C-alpha cells in the first residue's frame, strides 16, 4: 500500500512552502490530517494560517512542496476538489444585498442543486442553523453570529466531505461561539472532516488535533492532551506579595520562559532542563515552599513555550 494515499488521511502536505516576495509566509510545512476529525491551526495573526488554508483549497499555488487533499493532487486537481469541499472565508463573503434564502438558493444553483432537492436542503439548513425566522432578511443587516451561521450553512450546503473554516468565530460573541462549536461537532459526527484556524486557545483545545504555527513554521502538533503532556517546560504558580517586582526579577533568568500574573498568582514557565523547578525558584527568590506549586500546563502554556523564540 502506497503511503501517499493512505485512506484515513484526508490532507497530506510535504515540505509545503509559499513565498510572497522575500517573505516566507509558509515554510516547509508538513501535515498529515486524519479523516473525520476537527483539526486546528493555532497561531497569532499573520502566522500563515490563511495562506496555508488557501493552498490546501487550491486558491494559492505553493512555491514548493506537495499537497494531496481527498486523494487529489493540488493545484492540478483544484477544480475536482471544489465539488467535495466547503470553504468559509475569514471575512463574510456572501452577498450583503441578498436575503438569507436568496444567498442559499444562489449557492445551491452554483453547486447544481435544483428543484425539490434544493428546497428540502435549504429548509434543513435553515432549521439546523436557526435561520428560519430570518430567511427574508438581508444578509447585510444581520448580527455577526447570524451571518456566521449563514456562512456555515452556505459552506455545507452541498454536503462537502471536507470543510475549511478560516477564523470562523472572530466576529462572534462567546455564547454563539459555543453553539457554533456544537454544530461543528455535529457535522464531524455526520462524517465531515474539518480544518479550522483560530487564535483562541479555548477553541484550539476543542480540536481533536492541532498544529501551532508561527511565522509560517509549524512549531508543534498533536492532540491538545499530547501537547500539554509533552510541554518542554514546568508550569509553576507562585502566590506572594509584590508580584510585579518578582516577575521582573524572574524574567531576567535564562531558564524562565515567561511569567504572567493571574490575579494574586504568578504563573511561571521554566524550561524543562531545570530538573527541580521549586528548588530552582527558592534558590533564586525568597518565597516559602507552600506558596509554590507545580500545576497542569494549559494550551496557552504550550503555545507560549512553542512560540517563545520570537519574544526574546
Amino acid at each position, binding site marked *: 500500500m502506497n503511503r501517499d494515499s493512505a485512506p484515513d488521511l484526508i490532507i497530506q502536505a510535504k515540505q509545503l512552502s509559499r513565498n510572497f516576495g522575500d517573505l516566507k509566509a509558509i515554510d516547509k510545512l508538513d501535515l498529515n490530517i486524519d479523516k473525520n476529525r476537527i483539526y486546528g491551526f493555532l497561531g497569532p495573526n499573520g502566522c500563515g494560517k490563511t495562506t496555508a488554508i*488557501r493552498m490546501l*483549497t*487550491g*486558491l*494559492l*499555488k505553493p512555491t514548493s512542496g506537495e499537497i494531496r487533499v481527498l486523494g487529489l493532487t493540488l*493545484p492540478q486537481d*483544484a*477544480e475536482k476538489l*471544489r*465539488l467535495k*469541499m466547503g*470553504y468559509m*472565508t475569514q*471575512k*463574510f*463573503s*456572501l*452577498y*450583503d*444585498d*441578498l436575503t438569507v434564502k*436568496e444567498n442559499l438558493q*444562489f*449557492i445551491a*444553483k*452554483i*453547486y*447544481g442543486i*435544483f428543484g425539490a432537492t434544493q428546497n428540502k436542503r435549504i429548509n434543513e439548513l435553515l432549521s439546523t442553523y436557526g435561520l428560519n425566522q430570518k430567511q427574508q432578511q*438581508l444578509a447585510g443587516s444581520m448580527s455577526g453570529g447570524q451571518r456566521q451561521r449563514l456562512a456555515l450553512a*452556505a459552506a455545507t450546503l452541498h454536503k462537502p466531505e471536507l470543510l475549511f473554516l478560516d477564523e470562523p468565530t472572530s466576529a462572534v460573541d462567546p455564547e454563539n461561539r459555543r453553539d457554533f462549536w456544537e454544530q461543528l461537532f455535529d457535522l464531524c459526527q455526520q462524517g465531515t472532516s474539518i480544518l479550522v484556524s483560530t487564535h483562541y486557545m479555548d477553541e484550539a483545545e476543542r480540536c481533536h488535533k492541532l498544529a501551532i504555527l508561527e511565522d509560517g513554521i509549524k512549531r508543534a502538533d498533536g492532540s491538545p492532551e499530547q501537547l500539554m503532556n509533552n510541554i518542554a517546560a514546568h508550569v509553576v504558580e507562585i502566590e506572594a506579595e509584590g508580584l510585579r517586582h518578582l516577575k521582573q526579577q524572574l524574567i531576567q533568568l535564562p531558564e524562565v520562559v515567561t511569567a504572567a500574573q493571574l490575579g494574586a498568582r504568578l504563573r511561571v514557565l521554566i524550561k524543562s532542563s531545570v530538573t527541580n523547578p521549586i528548588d530552582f525558584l527558592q534558590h533564586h527568590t525568597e518565597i516559602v515552599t507552600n506558596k509554590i506549586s507545580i500545576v497542569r500546563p494549559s494550551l496557552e502554556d504550550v503555545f507560549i513555550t512553542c512560540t517563545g523564540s520570537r519574544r526574546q
Partner: protein
Amino acid sequence: MITSLYRIQAICFKELMQLKRDKMTFAMVIMIPLVQLVLFGYAINTNVRHIPVAVVDHSQSALSRVLVQTVAATQVVTFSHHFDDIKSAQEALEQAQIRAILIIPQDLSQRVVRHASLGFALPDSSDEQTGRPIAQWLVDGSDTMVAGAIKGLRNMPLAELLSKPANRSTPTFEVTLFYNPEQRSAVNIVPGLVGIILTMTMIMFTSAAIVREREHGNMEMLITTPIRSIELMLGKIIPYIFIGLLQVAIILGLGYLVFNVPINGGLWALFCITLLFIAASLALGLVISTIATNQLQSMQMTIFVLLPSILLSGFMFPYEGMPEIAQYIAEALPATHFMRLVRGVILRDVCFTDMLPDVYWLSAFTFAGILLASFRFKKTLD
C-alpha cells in the same frame, strides 16, 4: 452543459436581484440616457447663433443703422454694445463681453454705392475703390466655430440695404442636402449619443460589477465553487445586455418623439449592430475588471476610454478632419465603428452588408476581449 447554463442563470438572477435592490444604480440606468438625451439634444448646436458683438459706428447715418439692422436680421450676431471709439470696443473684446466688433467707416455711403454687388454704378475695374468692403469685423478668433460663423457674413447680400431687389448672381454650385435637409444638429447628435451612453454605462457597469465582488470579498467564495470563469463572465454580462438595449430604446424613442429624429433604417439591422456594440463594450469592461483592483480604478479606466470615444469617434467632430494618427486611434475604438454603423442605419438606411468592415471590427473586438478577459481571470488568488 445543463448545469453550466444553470450556473450562468444563477449569476444573472443574482445580478438582477442586486440591481433591483440598488435603487440608485437602477435610477441611473434610466436617468443617464433620459437626462443626457434631452440635455445634449437641445444643447449641442453646431449652428452658431446670437453671438454678442459690438458696433463702432463712425458713419452715424441712416444707412449705417439699416446696415446694423440687416446684419442683426441674420440672427448670427446680436448687437449688445455700442461704442464710440475702437479702443473701448477692444477692451470689451478683451474682457470677453463681446466676441467681435463691427466697425462702420465714415464713408459708408460712398463705399456702398461703389460696391460691386449692388451693380449700381459700374466703375472701371482699374478703380481701386471698387474692391473695398463697406465695413470691417474685428473678431476674437480663438473659437474657430464662432469665427467661422462671422466669416460667413463676409458675402452677405447687400441689396436689402437699399430696398432694391437682389441682384442675384448664379451660384457656382448647387448644393442639395440629403438625410438632414433642415440641418438640425439633433439628427446627427441623437444616434451618436446612443454610442456615447452605451460606451459609458456598459463599460462602467461590467467593470464595476466584477471588481465589486472582489472588493466585497465575494470573489474568494465564488472561486472556491465549481463555477467556471467563462460562466461567471457570461452570467455577469447578460443582464447588462438587456439594460443596454433598454437604454437604446429610451434614447431612440425619445429622439423620435422629442427631436423628431427619424429611424430610416430597419429595426432589425439596428438591433443587430446595437447588440454587437453592447457586446464589444461589455467585453472591454470585462478586460478592465481583470486589471483594476478596486472600483475607483475601474472608473478611471472607463473614463480613459470614454473621453476619446466622445472626442475622436466622430460624435462631436468629423472623423475626416482629424490628423492621420488620431484617425488610427479612433479606428481602434468600438465607438467610432458604431458611430458609423448607427448613423448609417438610422439616417441613411444603409444595408447591413454594406458596412461589413465595421461589423467585422466590432465582432473581432468582442471576441478578443472575452478571450483576453477569460485568460486573465484566474480562479486563484496568486
